């Protein structure tokens, strides 16, 4: 199967994402230019999972994702999603998906008004989505976040619908106690512990998202948006490989379930 990674002007995690897919996961992955109205040239194998990467598309001018959603490639992304194809929005990509209406709600300025670049703990609420089958339900994993506008917001009716439908896939969660955490001692020598355990315990929700929401899927379950960066934690060298399992889930969903 082939991944496509959209490149907007201002995307800055596209190369990291392509690296993680190609070099770590070992899957074919192609960049998709924002100005193209299609997901590929029609010659190469079709793109089966489109990823909108992190960054600052169009400088985050107006609102994060507000201008990127009108890019020609977004028409192709919408067609892909409407046809049941997999779409994954990471960080700025999540912001683009909510602006485009492919996911409900909005992502607002962090409640503390700070750009947050830190590790967070996430509870995997569902493992029956195409993006999370390689996790266990209720498992707590660590991923990095880096954003200034990641506070998920939806009105009460939308929130109730999200929860009733089980569309909340990832939630910020207090870090497990060290004795229970497989990562407790990992990498602690790299920087002072107050950047990690203490801060994570005190503010496990880094941006003030309602219901501690870190990632949601659409009703159909084929579009996922999340603020954390799975592509930044695909190798033990990078202090954890929890993110790789998200991409492995996608390859499993495509090859296992025979989507397209």
């Amino acid at each position: 199967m082939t991944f496509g990674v959209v490149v907007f002007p201002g995307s800055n995690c596209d190369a990291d994402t392509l690296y993680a897919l190609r070099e770590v996961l070992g899957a074919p992955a192609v960049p998709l230019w924002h100005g193209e109205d299609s997901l590929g040239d029609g010659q190469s194998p079709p793109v089966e999972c489109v990823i909108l990467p992190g960054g600052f598309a169009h400088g985050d001018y107006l609102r994060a994702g507000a201008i990127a959603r009108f890019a020609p490639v977004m028409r192709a992304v919408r067609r892909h999603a409407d046809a049941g194809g997999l779409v994954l929005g990471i960080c700025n990509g999540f912001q683009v998906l909510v602006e485009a209406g492919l996911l409900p709600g909005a992502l607002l300025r962090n409640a503390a008004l700070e750009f947050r670049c830190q590790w967070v703990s996430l509870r995997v609420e569902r493992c029956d989505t195409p993006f999370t089958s390689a996790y266990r339900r209720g498992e707590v994993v660590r991923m990095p976040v880096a954003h200034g506008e990641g506070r998920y917001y939806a009105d009460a009716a939308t929130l109730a619908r999200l929860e009733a439908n089980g569309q909340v896939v990832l939630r910020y969660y207090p870090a497990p106690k060290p004795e229970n955490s497989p990562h407790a001692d990992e990498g602690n020598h790299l920087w002072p512990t107050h950047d990690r355990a203490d801060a994570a315990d005190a503010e496990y929700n880094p941006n003030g998202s309602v219901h501690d929401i870190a990632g949601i899927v659409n009703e159909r379950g084929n579009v996922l948006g999340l603020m954390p960066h799975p592509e930044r934690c695909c190798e033990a060298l990078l202090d954890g490989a929890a993110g790789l399992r998200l991409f492995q889930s996608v390859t499993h969903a495509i090859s296992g379930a025979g989507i397209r």
Partner: protein
Amino acid sequence: MSASWVAHVSVLPKAEVLDPQGAAILGALRHLEFAGVTAVRGGRLFELHIDTMDRAGAEELARDAARRLLCNPVVETFTIRVEAAASGGNEADGEPTVRAGER
């Protein structure tokens, strides 16, 4: 013949949406002892310079721009005010119209 207008589109976070920027500004105002200020909401003002036949056309265009791009209806509301563009010292074309946006 078309005329020149300036549409001011004000975009504010909805009342029910937490506005940490407004809260921070309120805190600063209190620090400066502006005791009477009880709440602040921070938003954006867009000034659209528009050439259309009439004021209604300018207002309609600005409303369309606000709906489709300038305002995110999930979390924001907007109001529009249209006035004649000042040109070479001519007096403005009457009073500015003030219309409510969408709440």
